């Protein structure tokens, strides 16, 4: 069973499987939790899953440095997203005194 062996010992299949499962867990956090802060953490998990897949493919295509360059751009965008997203969370809390997304279902109060 070479595929199972590759998954257990760190072949490409193992990294891709970890990335996909990480993405699904992040999706579960976004869908299943009500707190907007936990949903934000789920989004960060999904972004990280994409990074793991990107760098795994870069490694298995001959340690391609372009993968790392794109990883750098992705974390620059992730840092922007984190600062603006958390600013929005603070703004939402000021308006409604709540971080529950079920309670923030109208555009205007």
């Amino acid at each position: 069973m070479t595929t199972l062996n590759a998954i257990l010992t760190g072949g490409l299949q193992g990294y891709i499987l970890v990335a996909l499962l990480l993405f699904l867990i992040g999706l579960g956090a976004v869908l299943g939790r009500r707190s907007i802060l936990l949903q934000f953490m789920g989004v960060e998990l999904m972004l990280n899953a994409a990074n793991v897949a990107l760098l795994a493919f870069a490694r298995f295509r001959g340690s391609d440095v372009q993968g790392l360059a794109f990883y750098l751009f992705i974390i620059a965008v992730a840092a922007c997203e984190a600062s603006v997203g958390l600013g929005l969370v603070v703004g939402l809390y000021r308006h409604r005194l709540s971080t529950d997304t079920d309670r923030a279902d109208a555009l205007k109060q």
Partner: protein
Amino acid sequence: MFLIFALITLAGAVALVFQRNLVVAGLCLVLCFMGVAGLFLLLLNPVAAALQIIVYSGAIVVLLLFVIMLLNEHQEEPAVRARPLQRWISVALLLALGAGVVRLVAASPLLRQLNAGLATQAPGAITLATLGNALMGDHLVAFEVAGLLLLAAMVGAVALVKRDL
């Protein structure tokens, strides 16, 4: 070694989803990011591992924990109304997606081919020098635009949070 880091990553992520306390969930996120950094080390990519720890476990999680403590919302609020049907549908869909993903990865001939191709390559870690050459050579415009984007996000975050400018 791969299995240890993969389990740390997935365990941190699962603990985050089922955690009641938001501060502890943030610490679970740190655990998960550390596992991902370990995976990057195993991929012979020490630069990415260092960046992962500095930017994610450092900057982003600290900002997140800062906001959690600032808002004083350490617990999730009780639900406005229970939605058992939607909850079970989403769990079932996620499980089906997970099973499909495992089957897809295990059966993919392309992944097997790429995995087998690793044996023929010379091993070598990516260093900061090669990254710098790639950034300043191939991606110079994108690099400058990323800097501008960071500036715009910084100004935007200040404008969003400030009560009256």
